């Protein structure tokens, strides 16, 4: 229980708890103390000197952002003397670089501008310094304009503290100080992961979104939380709307999983629509897709689905996106499984889940680690997983572990991964030879830690039969790397093993079995806790799909394929292409006029991410519910309405058949 304290700020009695700063207490009690460098997401800097206050009994002024609030304190936050000092600080800042508001992309949503108005800054009495500084436009998503920078360090802190990468820093010193990336390279060529957190926290126009300059005036903006549909972490974000349209996306302080951190995909890429919308239903007539009204399209859909129900014309296969909300997935599954009697219902990327399920069947279910365990891990082994690419927020957490705590990461993947840059060691086996590497590691583990007695003779022999030399020969990795990887793993107290799509998409459950064996082995020899494994998949609602019962689909000899892709950029693999060509008929429910359309016989419009609401369940089982942020264009019906309509028509057809 935190100790309650009472202090007086500007004559008002304020309550807080021990450990809060004067600024926090003031804010909590509805009092305003001006700040610039302070930001609730970040550690205290204390550099801008806007929040200076007088504390009775203290000789010097203190910064409210840094000073601990004490019981009985008497604080003066506003008087003429403080006002003069704040004005002087603002005047100094305005003379420093170019802060000519009308020409700034962020005018209207600028904290420096706000403070200047509040403190009646009308001019500066000193010659403007205005050094010549070139804006950096090399980042695809945002611009860094040093001319607007007040050196508050929010971007630098966010880059290290939240994004974990530490791309940004301060170069030089004093009035020559400037924010630099890496060794002073343009942002676009730097190690920046383009998460955009720095843009969120920048108080001025020194960092701004390329998409929304001169646009995001404070007036008339609305914010609604939503979820990134990309990966299974469950990253929530704040959608900034203007006149009902998405202006930009911001980090959301209350996001339960990711906090304010977003990936470049959830913040920027999501706003790029590579294909035009499907605005009206279409039906193929004489080989051509022709726009029709909803009734005709729905009838055509029901007809196609009904024909296959007798079984005479083969079976229906359903494939659906894991980005959709739980409710839509459930309706879809119900329609196909219950009403069409279809057994082949799956999601795109269903193989990722299938492999895990098969591993469960073969080796029994094992405890998987949660985010907590990942945060506390002192060693991370990544197998077939490139979180920096597929799960960038997790990638950033790992970067933080590496940069802040020096935690070693070992990465095993046949691909060249982005995460390899973070790894102390990365092994790149030839595709298909991952198993040899895992045997090699197991062999090394029993060798290095004398664990032969823990497994039966045959198993031990099998593992020993993969000495580093053989692994090197079979997989094309260096012998020493195998030895070192095993040693790093064996030395850890709380290691975690994380695997991802590159492993599960191999369809080989044995690989997962070997990971569990590795975990158990170390669990026996003094790793302080159970060593844990965790698999990750793409698509925000993969876990929901698993719960609902999507179980795998056999496309062979499909009469009708019903694809519910929404706005999922489905990976059109040669196999899928062939399956769609071979299918008797293809129903496509899609938001975009993408490459799938060419295979479709019926095309139904669908919603995109911002237009749908519902529940998403992340990889750890955390459920989050969001409402739609934007309205769908006229004529586009919600996915669930479409599914219900199809269901009703199907029942009607059935009844007609019975009669």
């Amino acid at each position, binding site marked *: 229980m935190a100790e309650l304290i009472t202090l007086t700020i500007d004559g008002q009695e304020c309550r807080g708890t021990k450990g809060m700063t004067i600024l926090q207490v003031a804010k909590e009690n509805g009092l305003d103390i001006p700040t610039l460098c302070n930001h609730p997401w970040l550690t205290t800097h204390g550099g801008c*000197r806007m929040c200076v206050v007088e504390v009775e009994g203290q000789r010097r002024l203190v910064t409210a952002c840094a000073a601990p609030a004490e019981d009985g304190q008497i604080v003066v936050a506003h008087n003429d003397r403080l006002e003069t000092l704040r004005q002087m600080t603002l005047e100094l800042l305005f003379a420093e670089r170019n802060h000519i508001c009308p020409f700034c992309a962020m005018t209207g949503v600028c904290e420096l501008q706000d403070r200047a108005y509040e403190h009646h800054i009308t001019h500066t009495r000193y010659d403007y310094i205005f050094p010549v500084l070139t804006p950096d436009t090399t980042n695809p998503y945002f611009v860094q304009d040093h001319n607007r920078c007040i050196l508050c360090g929010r971007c630098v802190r966010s880059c290290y503290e939240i994004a974990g990468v530490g791309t940004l820093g301060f170069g030089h*010193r004093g009035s020559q100080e400037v924010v630099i990336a890496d060794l002073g390279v343009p942002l676009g060529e730097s190690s920046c992961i383009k998460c955009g957190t720095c843009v969120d926290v920048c108080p001025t126009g020194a960092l701004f979104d390329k998409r929304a300059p001169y646009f995001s005036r404070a007036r008339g903006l609305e914010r609604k939380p939503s979820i990134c549909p990309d990966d299974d972490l469950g990253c929530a974000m704040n959608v900034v709307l203007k006149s009902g349209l998405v202006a930009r996306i911001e980090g959301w302080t209350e996001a339960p999983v990711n906090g304010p951190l977003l990936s470049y995909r959830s913040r920027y890429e999501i706003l790029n629509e590579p294909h035009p919308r499907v605005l009206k239903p279409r039906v193929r007539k004489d080989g051509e897709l022709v726009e029709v009204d909803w009734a005709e399209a729905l009838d055509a859909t029901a007809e196609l689905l009904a024909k296959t129900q007798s079984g005479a014309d083969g079976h229906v296969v359903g494939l659906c996106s894991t980005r959709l909300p739980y409710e839509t997935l459930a309706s879809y599954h119900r329609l196909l499984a219950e009403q069409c009697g279809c057994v082949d219902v799956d999601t795109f990327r269903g193989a990722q889940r299938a492999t895990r399920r098969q591993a469960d069947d073969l080796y029994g279910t094992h405890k998987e680690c949660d985010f907590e365990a990942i945060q506390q891990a002192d060693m991370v082994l990544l197998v077939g997983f490139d979180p920096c690419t597929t799960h960038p927020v997790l990638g950033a957490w790992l970067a933080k572990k590496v940069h802040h705590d020096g935690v070693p990461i070992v990465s095993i993947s046949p691909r060249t991964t982005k995460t390899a840059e973070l790894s102390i060691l990365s092994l790149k086996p030839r595709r298909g030879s991952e198993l040899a590497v895992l045997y090699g590691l197991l062999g090394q583990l029993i060798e290095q830690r004398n664990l032969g007695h823990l497994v039966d003779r045959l198993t031990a022999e099998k593992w020993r039969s993969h000495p580093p030399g053989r692994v090197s020969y079979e997989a094309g990795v260096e012998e020493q790397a195998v030895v070192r990887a095993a040693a790093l793993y064996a030395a850890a107290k709380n290691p975690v093993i994380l695997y991802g799509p590159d492993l599960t998409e191999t369809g080989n459950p044995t690989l997962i079995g070997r990971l569990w064996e590795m975990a158990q082995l170390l669990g026996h020899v003094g790793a302080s806790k159970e060593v844990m494994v965790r698999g990750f998949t793409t698509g925000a609602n993969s876990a929901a799909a698993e719960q609902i019962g999507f179980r795998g689909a056999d496309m062979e000899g499909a009469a009708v394929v019903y694809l519910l892709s929404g706005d999922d950029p489905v990976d059109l693999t040669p196999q899928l292409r062939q399956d769609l060509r071979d299918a008797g008929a293809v129903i496509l429910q899609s938001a975009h006029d993408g490459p799938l359309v060419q295979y479709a016989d019926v095309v139904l419009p669908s919603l995109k991410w911002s237009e749908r609401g519902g529940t998403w369940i992340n990889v750890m089982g955390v459920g989050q519910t969001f409402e739609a942020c934007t309205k769908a264009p006229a004529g586009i019906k919600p996915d669930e309405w479409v599914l219900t309509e199809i269901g009703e028509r199907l029942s009607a057809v059935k009844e007609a058949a019975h009669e």
Partner: protein
Amino acid sequence: MAERKVLLERYDVPNIWELDVYRRHGGYATLDGLFAKSPTDWVEEVKASGLCGRGGAGFPTGVKWSFLAKGTGKPTYLVVNADESEPGTCHDRRLLERLPHQLIEGIINTCYAIDAHEAYVYIRGEYLEPYQRLVQAIREAEAAGLLGKTVAGQDFPLRIVVHRGAGAYICGEETALLSSQEGDKGQPRQKPPFPAVAGLYAAPTIVNNVQTISTIPHIVRHGAAWFAGINLAPESKSPGPRILSVSGHVQRPGIYEVETGTPFEELLYGLCGGIRGGHDLKSVIPGGSSMPMLPKDVILQTDTSFESIRKAGSQPGSGAVIVMDETTDIPTVVWRISRFYAHESCGKCTPCREGNPWSVKLLRRFVDGTARAEDLRILVEVAEAMEKNSFCPLGIAAAWATQGALKHFRHEFEARISHASAIAAGD
């Protein structure tokens, strides 16, 4: 009146920086009695001596030691501030160059008292030769069993690591020094926590200056009472011998070790031989460029005790006495001092980062005689902003230089306001 040589007593002994020479002259004798008393006894002894830090702030050393956080489960560190960079100050360099073993002896004494087993000396980068001397002395001491797994055969391990700065005045500020030593930019940190609670590597840390630590063996050897008695000013609570660097317009600039309370008149006209070339004295900065300057009539009524200097409206600071004769142009001196702070500002806080370049430009106008009437007012306001609102003492010091000069020599600035601009401004 002569010098009171304690720390500098052996200064002129040939090759005193070598271990055996230093030992022949009584060096490391304190190790005989050191371990016989408890660490706490020594902290009390240093408290009782009244020794105040010689680096600039003048805080009582023993009191600082007693603030060390206990039972943190972390090691305690001693960091010796050898980043002497305050303009006008050059005595720590001499202590390092000629008497490195005196410092090492002081480090051993101090580490025993505060129960530290690792000491770092953060030495100014430009002091290459002193650095080499110190490293060499540490090697000798290690070889002689005075440092290492045991100290003089006692079950007391001690390691000294010398860390070189690389050209940043701000690192003389203790928290900036710790940031720098930790491998960051040398920027000051928020206090609290104070270093004694969370300093180097977030562990309890004592930061003391070279001269302070070099004084410790003498207190250990002769006792607190002896030290407290070295005091000519009865009301002074900052006793002891103190080394002053005297530079500028005196006949014999140099470093002088004097008893607390020695009148400046004796220092300047006795020890230093008076003002050069028969000129008259104009002004003295008594504690390094960071401290307000005092005019002749004030300084000649002042003595070297902390109390006397403070009463006169300045600060004892680093003990750098910068003497200016009547030929000195005060605006030019202040402009140059201001340029120093603009160059050394770390950039962390607005008033210091931006206020210093403003001041330099304004002061330049006074040097050139092109100042506008309002420039004097802006100069005063910028100084006020820096003094009241800077993150660390650097910005405050920069303001004091200007404020001190304006307090006593305002007429010299007013005389530089250009007539044309005064008319334009309607004055």
